[in-house]
């Protein structure tokens, strides 16, 4: 019984330690970069970007389209709609505000809206100027930008040193727990064709494929 308790305690400690320190985060060393060096991928793109979207939450799957467009400096419009044109969500994101133009009653829940807003901001990067203590480090041919903001946790942007493209984005809690992983692949004219957003601790994922 004593041994069982010791093993349980040890396992709990190990699990706690690793859950608070996902691989790589704690190895970052401060450098001289700042978030201004990080270029948002959709900034300055005049045309609306249309992605085929596949969303999965638990056993529920939704297929549709995601459209976003930069309206002005750091202001983006984001629309999620079904294949047949029914809008589920139409929001505008400024660096500090979320304006809901239209929302389907079925998804009109603060939690859903907050998660979607957080994911879109992670991708659109229109609020990074408000993040501080940026650092970077060359690790495995990638330059990592670490952004922190009080109450918002941490973000990690991984730039591929060979291509200069943004490969991954990670969001973590202030304790370092990985919460969201965004992967961006198959760039064409500076825009990723494939984007995946995976949540940790939340059974939610989003797969995007560029339509045109």
């Amino acid at each position, binding site marked *: 019984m004593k041994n069982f308790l010791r093993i349980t305690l040890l396992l709990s400690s190990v699990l706690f330690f690793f859950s608070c320190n996902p691989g790589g985060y704690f190895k970052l060393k401060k450098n001289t970069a700042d978030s201004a060096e990080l270029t948002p991928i959709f900034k300055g793109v005049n045309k609306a970007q249309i992605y085929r979207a596949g969303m999965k939450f638990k056993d529920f799957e939704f297929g549709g*389209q995601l459209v976003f467009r930069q*309206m002005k400096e750091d202001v983006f419009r984001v629309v999620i709609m079904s*294949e047949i*044109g029914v*809008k589920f969500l139409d929001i505008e994101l400024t660096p500090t505000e979320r304006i809901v133009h239209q929302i*389907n009653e079925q998804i009109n829940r603060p939690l859903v809206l907050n998660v979607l807003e957080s994911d879109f901001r992670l991708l659109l990067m229109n609020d990074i100027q408000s993040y501080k203590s940026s650092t970077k480090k060359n690790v495995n041919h990638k330059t990592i930008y670490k952004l922190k903001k009080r109450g918002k946790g941490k973000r990690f942007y991984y730039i591929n040193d060979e291509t200069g493209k943004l490969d991954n984005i990670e969001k973590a809690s202030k304790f370092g727990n990985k919460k969201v992983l965004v992967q961006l692949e198959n760039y064409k004219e500076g825009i990723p064709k494939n984007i995946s957003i995976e949540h940790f601790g939340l059974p939610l994922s989003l797969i995007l494929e560029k339509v045109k």
Partner: protein
Amino acid sequence: MNKYFLFFFLNIFSFTVAFAQLEGFSTMKNVEAFTVRMGEEARTTETISSDFVQKKYLSFMEDEIESSGVFKFKKDHLLRWEYTVPYTYIIVLNGDKVSIKEEGKKASEFDMSSNETFKKINELMLNSVRGTVLENDEFNLNYLESKGEFLIHLVPKKKELKNVLQNIYIYFDKSDYQVSSIHMTEESGDYTKIMFKNKKLNEELSEDNFIVK
């Protein structure tokens, strides 16, 4: 047959259209004759196949989002809505069951009765099968006509529907009483247009068309 189109879109899509689009139309002179003819069309139509082009307008975009594909219906309750451009996406309705097939993925299926929205759609579908579409009390109906077309303007009565469907306008060709297009606008001014072409009636349609794997 026109009723089937009508009900399908009433239930599956959320649509509205600006009154400006009604230019050239006036109140229908003989609603009863139109209703009787619609009923006849519904009774005698066993299958429908049609190509379609869909255009979605969002106010913040320069261009409409265009897609196209094929629509198939088989009496009493089988519907297949297949997008082929810009990518393949198939929706099949069979009674309470909805099957969705995406390119490169296995088909998924769910029961409409577990979802209030789809349940409503299902009820509307049943109304269409029963030939009571024009008597549907979920909408206020306006009957209009121009030189070449009939137009039914539907306004949802209930708030839940009105939030997504402000107006639905269904255009019928006067020469054959077939649906030529459906326009749906939202409160924001955004809209969806669906235009039908190459319609074929009562051609043999295998039930395989309504099975996706």
